[in-house]
């Protein structure tokens, strides 16, 4: 067999543990401390996260996260899709709150081509985003509690999440990967059965949150496991680019919904819960309170939901409704152009940022002047949080590491994209 130069080069590769030697302490080299792999198939790493731990007994000396197991090349794939089609891919990043990813991408596209979003679409988006927030926090609470040995919370949380997924199915036809938000609005109007389901859920849900709190908030076992664990100083949190509840747990009052409102968030009144100690317990309290705040936001959104179009009337960017195709030649042309070629965007760069349940998702979008983007880049909260994990986890017990991983609320699909 003829071996090409490139294959030769591959065979010559000499990677080994020497590459990470400078990252562990000297005691690891003498064998005084132990190197231990945690993951990628460990149940409490919340996905396929691999941690290379240097342990002194049970104490963590160094923690080296290894990510990339869920890398699916979403950013690279979007470069070969038109803007409308790319929305489907963004769902798959943070699969516990797909609508937040949709929102970040749609905001960037709308900014790039200067597209309006009607009032009704904005309110529907807020309802979807806050429902995603509740659904995501429910998964977080359930898995976080199960990591620490509290089994029943998990079952209760998933029961309530099921109702939200049912509502997502009404909206988009899909329980999870709905691709419901599109540039210029949402895919379709709220179906008839949605509002009664939503109102029933909102009437019931605060009582359920009380139930979770009864099980955990003043439970001495829970407090022992979480208070004073994984303390993040506010300076450290800012320097390492943490965001969302993890940042606010350290007492930094920064929420993108308040600081740089999008989709009309400035018109809703809601509180941003803040922590004092920056430990696992504070981050737990914040997320539970955020669920209650989300209920408040949705209730306001229901009250203000205006009548009108659910997506932009700008036919150069948004396809016409099906009914128009039978009457208008122009509608046929627009429909054909948008579904075959898509729309063009200028050769410029824009930046959009949203507050997802986990933190700040930013979308950097660079057009080409044609119908496909030149580059899309998402900075995702899980990515930044795992990067900071070595700093947070240092000198903790290995059992506390499980609590810390739960409290920074990571999703590996979000990290690896």
């Amino acid at each position, binding site marked *: 067999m003829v071996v090409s130069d490139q294959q030769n080069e591959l065979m010559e590769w000499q990677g080994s543990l020497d590459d990470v030697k400078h990252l562990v302490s000297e005691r690891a080299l003498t064998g005084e401390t132990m190197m231990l792999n945690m993951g990628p198939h460990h149940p409490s790493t919340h996905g396929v996260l691999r941690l290379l731990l240097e342990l002194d007994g049970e104490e963590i000396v160094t923690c080296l996260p290894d990510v990339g197991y869920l*890398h699916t090349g979403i950013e690279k794939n979007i470069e070969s899709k038109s803007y409308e089609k790319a929305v489907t891919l963004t769902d798959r990043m943070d699969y516990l709150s797909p609508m937040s990813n949709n929102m970040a991408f749609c905001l960037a596209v709308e900014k790039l081509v200067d597209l309006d979003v009607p009032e009704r679409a904005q309110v529907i988006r807020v309802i979807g985003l806050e429902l995603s927030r509740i659904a995501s926090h429910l998964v977080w609470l359930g898995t976080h509690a199960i990591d620490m040995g509290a089994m029943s919370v998990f079952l209760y949380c998933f029961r309530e999440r099921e109702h939200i997924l049912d509502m997502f199915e009404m909206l988009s036809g899909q329980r999870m990967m709905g691709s419901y938000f599109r540039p210029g609005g949402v895919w379709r109007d709220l179906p008839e059965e949605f509002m009664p389901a939503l109102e029933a859920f909102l009437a019931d849900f605060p009582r359920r949150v009380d139930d979770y709190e009864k099980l955990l908030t003043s439970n001495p076992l829970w407090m022992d496991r979480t208070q004073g664990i994984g303390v993040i100083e506010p300076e450290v949190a800012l320097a390492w680019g943490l965001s969302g509840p993890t940042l606010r747990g350290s007492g930094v009052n920064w929420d993108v919904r308040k600081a740089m409102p999008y989709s009309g968030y400035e018109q809703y009144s809601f509180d941003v819960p803040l922590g004092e100690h920056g430990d696992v317990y504070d981050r737990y309290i914040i997320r539970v309170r955020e669920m209650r705040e989300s209920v408040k936001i949705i209730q306001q959104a229901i009250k203000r939901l205006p009548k009108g179009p659910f997506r932009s009337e700008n036919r150069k960017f948004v396809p016409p409704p099906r009914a128009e195709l039978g009457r208008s030649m122009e509608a046929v042309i627009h429909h054909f152009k948008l579904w075959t070629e898509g729309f063009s965007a200028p050769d410029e760069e824009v930046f959009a940022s949203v507050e997802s349940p986990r933190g700040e998702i930013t979308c950097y979008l660079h057009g080409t002047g044609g119908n496909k983007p030149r580059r899309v880049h998402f900075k995702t909260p899980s990515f930044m949080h795992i990067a900071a994990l070595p700093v947070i986890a240092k000198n903790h017990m290995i059992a506390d590491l499980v609590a810390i991983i739960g409290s920074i609320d990571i999703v590996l699909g979000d990290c690896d994209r």
Partner: protein
Amino acid sequence: MTIAAPLNPVDALKQHFPDAVLDVREFRGETTVIVASAELPKLMQFLRDTSGLIYNYLSDISAVDYWEPYGGIGDRPARFGVSYHIYSMLYNRRLRIKVYVDEDDPVVPTVTQVWPAANWLEREIHDMMGIRFEGHPDLRRLLMPQDWQGHPHRRDYPLGYETVQFSFNVEEILKHKPFARSQD
């Protein structure tokens, strides 16, 4: 506590780094300052610590490839662009600092000493775009395997796939894997 009046970041940069600021662009209300890469860490330190600016939060670092066959370059000075999106919590505003990087020697000085958050963002760009960050403490690949060849986010890297491993072709595939030698 009184908060210092906000300064115009572009004017402040032009005053303190007259040689480094190459161009300023505005698009949809976003300001992009294009700077020379040589003094980048000093410039970032200045933006972070000067009263009236206080860009204390690094939101994102993104790299973009202006490869010519995909309608790139044009009036741009080089093939790669690296954009730093920084944010000031005090004044609630964003700024984009951009450097252009040459194709032949893609090197940018690291800003990890200014924002530790840059650590993984720079590693990701090194992995996916092949831009080296001088002075970075741990510039290994991040998302791709350590033995990966090429940089997937470059425009000249095809949207390909890895051959699926079956029993009939497993030997052929393992031949090209670096770890296969130790199993001999």
